[in-house]
């Protein structure tokens, strides 16, 4: 029984998700032929598609928050990326994007796979060590350290090169834009990271400055008298770009493929690699991490780079979906992303949480929006309800609600008239019991 309670309590976020799905299914309107609209395949994939942009940004945000930082600049960085992307598509840059993009894509993908493979190998070696219960360090052989990752990277580069060769020329550009815009966005993230690591600015300040200036940079890039860079006026690029908005094999919307891939990839990196372990260690106690020889600066810089990279990719997907690039495309997005991360149970203090939670958090947010929209509830009421949901979910998550209820029950039963502070030395049995219950809850988390 206690084990069951613990399981329920540990997985309550998932139960919340299920509950929301149930509510959605019950209250959903029906089509004239009697089909449940909420549960329809089209609606659920729509939700996945709609949350992917926020989801990608929230993925990066999770890693930054795990390190005890925050990235307020993601919205503006995404706006910058949409402008770059839209300009590559509409201006003559499209051709140069194709020329530059393919080698860049091959290089980047090869290097990424090689790096990832190295991280995974390092993580696996340590992991085996732990499961064996011995504190013996298994060192990687030279072959494991460079040979296998190198070969894998080469294979990935060849595969991607092969694939792109088989496509019609216009599709090169899609790949080019997908590499170039996020890479430029990463430059902004790099500045964030350097300001924080080398300049020792607080993350809040550094990224706040970037949030303001990136909007300016985006507007300057668009040309200061352009509020929007439209992608719809007669470019062949738009046809090829349709790929990024279509359904993959008619099953999954492509934007959500990016989101799911990011969650899986970075989830694995956080779980199985040294980078992930360091991230938790730094978020938990940065001083201790420094003292134990973790290269804190390197890990922090990587996190901010990844965060802006994902914002950059989100920008490209935005352009594909809405056929326009605009500097203020991501205004307010950073707050949505933070909300999703917090709903997902990642602590703003750092060191606690993970991407699985963020994934559920993003889904909860998206499904709720969908339910409210299907119910056709007034836009302003929707805003209020979303605020309420954030508060309620976090109250349940952080178990403050449990404490509130426990205290209330406690009062109601009339057993605790005494002020808890004066009652402390005597420790009446009921108080002790309540405290035990609370400990039990804490332990379960």
């Amino acid at each position: 029984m206690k084990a069951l309670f613990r399981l329920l309590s540990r997985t309550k976020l998932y139960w919340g998700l299920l509950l929301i799905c149930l509510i959605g299914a019950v209250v959903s309107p029906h089509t004239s032929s009697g089909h449940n609209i909420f549960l329809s395949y089209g609606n659920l994939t729509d939700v996945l598609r709609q949350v992917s942009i926020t989801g990608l940004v929230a993925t990066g945000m999770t890693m930054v928050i795990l390190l005890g930082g925050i990235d307020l600049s993601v919205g503006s960085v995404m706006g910058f990326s949409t402008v770059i992307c839209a300009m590559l598509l509409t201006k003559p840059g499209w051709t140069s994007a194709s020329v530059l993009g393919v080698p860049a894509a091959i290089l980047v993908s090869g290097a990424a796979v090689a790096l990832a493979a190295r991280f995974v190998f390092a993580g696996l070696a340590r992991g085996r060590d732990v499961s064996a219960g011995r504190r013996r360090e298994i060192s990687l052989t030279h072959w494991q350290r460079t040979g296998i990752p190198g070969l894998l990277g080469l294979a990935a580069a060849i595969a991607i090169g092969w694939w792109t060769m088989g496509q019609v020329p216009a599709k090169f550009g899609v790949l080019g834009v997908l590499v170039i815009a996020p890479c430029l966005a990463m430059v902004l993230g790099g500045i964030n990271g350097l300001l924080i690591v080398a300049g020792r600015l607080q993350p809040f300040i550094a990224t706040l400055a970037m949030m303001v200036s990136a909007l300016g940079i985006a507007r300057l890039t668009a040309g200061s008298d352009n509020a929007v860079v439209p992608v719809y006026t007669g470019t062949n690029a738009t046809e090829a770009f349709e790929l990024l908005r279509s359904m993959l094999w008619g099953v999954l919307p492509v934007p959500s493929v990016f989101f799911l891939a990011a969650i899986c990839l970075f989830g694995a990196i956080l779980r199985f690699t040294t980078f992930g372990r360091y991230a938790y260690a730094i978020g938990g106690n940065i001083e201790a991490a420094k003292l134990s020889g973790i290269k804190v600066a390197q890990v922090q810089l990587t996190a901010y780079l990844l965060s802006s990279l994902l914002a950059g990719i989100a920008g490209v997907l935005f352009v594909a979906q809405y056929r326009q690039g605009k500097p203020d495309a991501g205004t307010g997005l950073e707050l949505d992303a933070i909300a999703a991360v917090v709903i997902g149970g990642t602590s703003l203090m750092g060191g606690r949480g993970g991407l699985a939670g963020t994934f559920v958090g993003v889904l909860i947010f998206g499904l709720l929006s969908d339910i409210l929209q299907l119910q056709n509830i007034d836009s302003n009421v929707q805003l209020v309800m979303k605020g309420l949901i954030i508060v309620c979910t976090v109250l349940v998550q952080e178990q403050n609600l449990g404490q509130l209820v426990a205290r209330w029950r406690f009062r109601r039963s009339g057993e605790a008239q005494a002020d808890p502070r004066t009652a402390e030395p005597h420790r009446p049995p009921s108080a002790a019991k309540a405290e035990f219950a609370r400990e039990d809850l804490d332990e379960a988390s």
Partner: protein
Amino acid sequence: MTIYLPAGWTPARAAGRSKVGFSQCTTLEPWRVQFNKDIQAEAKNHPDIDLIITDGQDKTEKQVADCDNLIVQQVNVLLVSPKESAGLTGVVEKAIDAKIPVIVLDRNVDTKRITQFIGGDNVAIGKAAGEHAVKLLGGPGKAAGNVVEIWGGMGTQPAHDRHDGFHAFTDKEPGIKYLLNNQSGDWKQDKAYDIMTTALRNNEKIDMVYGHNDPMAYGAYLAAKDAGRDKDIKFIIGIDGLPDEGVTWVSKGQLTATFLYATPGAEGLRQAAKLLKGEKLKPVITLPTMLITKENASEILKKNG
């Protein structure tokens, strides 16, 4: 050596030139960008006028500071297109107290002491859209169909005016049904796209979309197109009629119609020039609207180059 000259004796005035200051509230919207283009184009016709444009960056306090700055520069005429009425009233009165005539553009301020107000009439445009909608849906008394209305910002006067004007006509028709209840696209193409996606999922039959501006109507069109239903929804109506946006979309047949909401930029500068020549101005100028359909869209595009 200008610094030794008495206050108010600026070189611009000495050369017989006059300064006109224009405080724009934001340049983050295409309509506002067109607004600035219009006023700059008109300024080329008045070589004796120096035009100074400031950008309020969508913040009331920034725009008030801009106006203060223009007052300090002692412009001969101040043009203001306020972000919101109440916040700008004080600084407009300050300019009038400093003997600077003020022409208010697009949105009015809460004082009667201004020299002139120039703007479009959103209620009239909404009515024109409503009248056209009734005609498209079968004519007065017989009109029937399911209508999706996508609001602009819920807290803004233009959205309410465009809504009220539209409903003044369509509410008389018992056959017209409204599918959405106050859904705000916040004037943005991407938000309207998402609202329309859900509306399409929720309703098997949608006959008409009325967007409070063109980008939202276009966003709704894109959503219908992605769902493969753009052919079923016959009438998508927007408002603004910018050459790069609404007019282009109408000429391509993506939107059925749009209604011109002219920017008061060019007219504002013309009136300022009149004032500088010593003419007396009418207190209010209302800019007319125009129905833009596929028939006249290409003509308008040609005229705009």
